[in-house]
């Protein structure tokens, strides 16, 4: 591998795009593209270059670092160059200028400019891809599809079979190993795509709108599964999406693209709290605020709640239930104690919520969780911070928070 160099110290980027330009010309005329690059440097816009030279600027001067183990989401309107940039990471699109570096901690390979042999090696062992339209081979069974990458690498049938079984179990399709792809639903097909990508053991996973061909319920389920797999497998994922909710849900970093350029990149909170321009603001405005709000932003502090007497705080509007902060007990008017349950994590999928029981969650719990607990228990939800109960949350608080956010973002 001739393109190997040592990486500057202290960097953990698994994948970095450096000054990447990607230009397309219908006949791939290199002179037209060279001219277009020049025009681009002189400050020509995308439209001008397209009109003057017939060259499409897919990506212009993109710089992006993707750290090991994080999910980075590329967002933008249709035609903004997300797929083009993503596909530069395994050279399905040729990079006109710039480099795409894939590192392993000590050395990196410039996949945009390496030789064919190295490129193949990288594609087989380091970078893998999940396609929007699945890209599965219809004449192969599910198992054969999953072991496709291994077959290209020359694994023996036994080894292939073993790994394929393993990955199929990971995505829950063991039962379907011998079926043909056409017998599977869209969601299952994309799971096969995921298993195929995982089977190569590549640490970088490129996903080009992998869930957008699926209906919303399945999409959500697959997002959850992806997050779950990610906590176990710790891949570096570059995920293209045009859905802000999806991006916020799964992304630990978001890069927003517009007309071939990355105009803002950063963690989701930063994108939401300080959008750089109207384009980004527009994206943020259309998001669903629920998953982003947490108990802290919704709750009412106990101090401001009405009291029955010195020791008891009234919990609900009708005044049936009271809470005693000193003894940390909930009781009704007659003095009968109501069971109180502490729940420390945000994950309540395992929890059997008992109706009539009061739940207490930490301030970091998402609004989703709080709302679910409120709905299922039929009681207000208590909020704790550092094992001290400090606030409470009922319907009015939640509605207030949601409408408040909606109103605030419109004014913004």
């Amino acid at each position: 591998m001739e393109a190997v160099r040592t990486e500057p110290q202290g960097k953990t980027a698994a994948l970095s795009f450096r000054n990447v330009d990607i230009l397309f010309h219908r006949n791939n005329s290199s002179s037209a593209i060279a001219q277009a690059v020049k025009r681009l440097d002189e400050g020509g816009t995308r439209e001008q270059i397209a009109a003057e030279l017939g060259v499409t600027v897919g990506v212009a001067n993109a710089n992006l670092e993707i750290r090991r183990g994080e999910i980075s989401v590329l967002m933008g309107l249709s035609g903004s160059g997300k797929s083009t940039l993503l596909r530069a990471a395994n050279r399905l699109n040729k990079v006109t200028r710039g480099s795409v570096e894939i590192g392993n901690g000590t050395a990196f390979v410039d996949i945009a400019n390496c030789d064919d042999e190295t490129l193949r090696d990288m594609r087989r062992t380091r970078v893998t891809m999940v396609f929007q339209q699945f890209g599965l081979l219809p004449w192969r069974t599910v198992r054969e599809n999953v072991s496709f990458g291994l077959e290209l690498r020359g694994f023996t049938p036994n080894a292939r079979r073993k790994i394929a079984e393993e990955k199929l179990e990971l995505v829950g399709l063991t039962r379907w190993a011998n079926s043909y792809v056409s017998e599977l639903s869209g969601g299952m097909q994309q799971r096969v795509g995921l298993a195929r990508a995982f089977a190569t053991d590549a640490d970088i996973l490129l996903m080009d709108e992998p869930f957008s061909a699926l209906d919303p319920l399945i999409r959500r389920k697959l997002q959850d599964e992806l997050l779950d797999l990610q906590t176990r497998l710790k891949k570096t994922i570059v995920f293209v999406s045009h859905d802000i909710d999806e991006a916020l849900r799964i992304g630990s970093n978001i890069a927003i693209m517009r007309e071939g350029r990355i105009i803002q990149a950063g963690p989701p909170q930063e994108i939401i709290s300080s959008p750089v321009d109207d384009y980004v603001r527009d994206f943020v405005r259309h998001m669903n605020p629920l998953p982003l709000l947490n108990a802290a932003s919704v709750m009412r502090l106990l101090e401001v709640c009405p009291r029955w007497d010195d020791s008891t705080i009234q919990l609900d509007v009708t005044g049936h239930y009271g809470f005693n902060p000193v003894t940390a007990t909930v009781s009704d008017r007659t003095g009968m104690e109501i069971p109180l349950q502490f729940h420390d994590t945000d994950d309540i999928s395992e929890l059997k919520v008992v109706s009539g029981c009061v739940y207490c969650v930490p301030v970091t719990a998402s609004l989703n969780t709080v709302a679910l607990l409120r709905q299922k228990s039929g009681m207000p939800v208590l909020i704790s911070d550092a094992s001290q109960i400090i606030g409470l949350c009922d319907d009015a608080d939640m509605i207030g928070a949601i409408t408040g956010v909606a109103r605030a973002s419109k004014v913004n």
Partner: protein
Amino acid sequence: MAFRLPWPGLKSPDCEARSMNGLEDWITSHKIPVGEVASNAVDWIRDHCQGGFDVISEAIGSCADGFTNLLTSVPPVLFVALLTIGVWFWKRAISTCVLVALGLLFIINQGYWQETMATLSLIFFATFTCMLIGVPIGIASAHRPWLAKILHPVLDLMQTLPTFVYLIPTLILFGLGTVPGTISTVVFAIPAPIRMTQLGISSVPKALLEAGDAFGATPRQRLWKVEVPAALPMIREGLSQCIMLSLSMVVIAALVGAGGLGVPVVRALNTVQIDTGFESGLAIVLVAIILDRLCRKKTH
């Protein structure tokens, strides 16, 4: 020769007629020697490469005749029984089995078994050769636009040029018999597998090719693990077209001395025998139907 307009009412000016006449004379007197060139070329080839053609002729001839002998050495009824059983295991369709058995028994009944076997052998050889040459050419031209551009008119020519025209040089080069019959059949039928393969390979969905690339396929792996399997239905279609086209050449092959079901047809034509003509014609149709059924894709 006076130049006359077909319409009596119109008079042609004399001078114009004369000059036209002169032009026509000039054109005819400078004949471009297309025919001569072709015939000289064939002569040259015959004089210089006859050895090579003899070898080819010998090879194809002995293979084809050997195969025919093998087919005819099996007792007809046993052959029908074996074939029917084979078809059952292959297709699992009772109707196809019945068709094969009844059709072949009818041919035995009419007394055309030898000829049918000779025809099958000819078709088999011609088709085998066509696929052997045609599929790689189809793949190559799907990958190289310039080759496809050159190939297009050549294939058109092969299919439109009347068969008798290239029958003559093949006769000269290979003599009478099975060989020129096989070769003319190949020339006529090979455009089908070339075209279908090319179409199949070039219409492989881009998504599948990219999937192959993204997982690090070498060009060879890409061909064998993505393109060919994806194009297989088309290639199979090319195969069945090739078989049908070969079958449609049996009568013409018989004219240059190849054996088979074409022979009684030609004989019937020469001696105006309606009965022989119909019998052998019907046998050809039956062979065609049976082969078509066998080529069809398996239906689950």
